[in-house]
């Protein structure tokens, strides 16, 4: 991490600490929850796409047939009918398979963008979508740096579709469907704190096998899903130019300024209007009177 990023992260950490103090009252009520996530070790993934099948079955979406559909031939994105997809990349280190889905950001752009909080960051970390609140404005799609939320354009009542980290299964005490279906332990489920320790340990014990970076540690302010790779992340379809700033921070200055403007500007405008009030009537000029006088001038 370079110096600039370090300073930014430190600043965010301070801000979080300050916020935590005020939130302390709430968290004392119930057991403090830690954000959970999944660690993806791309060196272990064999591209069997069991996770895609499990995901589709868990969420009533069309189930792909990995044996026959040949979907690995092209690089795909997630879609309104596939919350997760596995892609194949030909890299310096040979074939690499990468699972793609919602990253479940620490501070999600989509949730900050949502004007009805339909897109919601839950206490334990999964970012979920609530159909009764959503008005379908798709500002979440504009804002998400990973281009994850998808819209059902061909339906009269479209839903926004994206991975919800199996929110319904988590509440029943189960792990996400993709994690349980993975035959090679490429996916590890846990709290981010635990996952970071596991990921670091793997890098330290196999320093030549992995690139010394954990994607998702700081990207876009840190994400719930973390990735390990044997090749630079640019080669396996990741954007490495997203920065470490949480995306809601980009609108912070503007939103903070709004109440300030609302206090200051009306006072300034009213004050100006009184300063320019030559006849001392206190109100503005009556355009009705003007209409009559100009007409009068026109008549002559």
């Amino acid at each position, binding site marked *: *991490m*370079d*110096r*600039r990023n370090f300073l930014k992260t430190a600043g965010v950490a301070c801000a979080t600490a300050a916020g935590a103090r005020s939130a302390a009252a709430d968290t004392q009520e119930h057991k403090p929850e830690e954000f959970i996530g999944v660690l993806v070790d791309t060196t272990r993934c064999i591209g069997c796409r069991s996770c895609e099948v499990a995901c589709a079955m868990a969420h009533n979406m069309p189930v792909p047939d990995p044996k026959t559909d040949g979907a690995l031939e092209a690089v795909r994105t997630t879609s309104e009918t596939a919350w997760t997809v596995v892609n194949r990349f030909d890299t310096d280190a040979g074939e690499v398979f990468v699972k793609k889905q919602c990253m479940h950001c620490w501070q999600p752009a989509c949730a900050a963008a949502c004007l009805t909080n339909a897109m919601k960051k839950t206490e334990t970390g999964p970012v979920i979508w609530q159909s009764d609140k959503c008005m379908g404005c798709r500002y979440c799609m504009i804002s998400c740096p990973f281009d994850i939320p998808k819209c059902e354009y061909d339906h009269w009542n479209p839903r926004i579709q994206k991975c919800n980290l199996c929110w319904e299964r988590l509440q029943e005490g189960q792990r996400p469907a993709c994690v349980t279906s993975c035959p090679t332990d490429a996916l590890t489920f846990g709290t981010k704190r635990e996952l970071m320790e596991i990921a670091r340990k793997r890098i330290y014990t196999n320093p030549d096998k992995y*690139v*010394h*970076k954990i994607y998702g540690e700081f990207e876009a302010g840190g994400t719930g899903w973390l990735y390990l790779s044997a090749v*630079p992340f640019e080669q396996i379809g990741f954007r*490495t130019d997203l920065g470490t700033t949480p995306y809601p921070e980009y609108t912070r200055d503007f939103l903070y300024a709004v109440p300030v403007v609302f206090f200051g500007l009306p006072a300034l405008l009213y004050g100006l209007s009184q300063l320019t009030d030559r006849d001392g009537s206190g109100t503005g000029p009556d355009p009705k009177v003007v209409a009559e006088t100009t007409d009068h001038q026109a008549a002559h």
Partner: protein
Amino acid sequence: MESFTYVNIFETKGLEYILLICFLILFVFFVRYMNATEKRT
């Protein structure tokens, strides 16, 4: 990948201040240009 390098976020400030001075000077000329007819008549 990750590196520990110095990034000067104020690198372009010098140029920006030069532009600012240019703007102020040009603004005077711009307004004088527009108002030229008013003086003549």
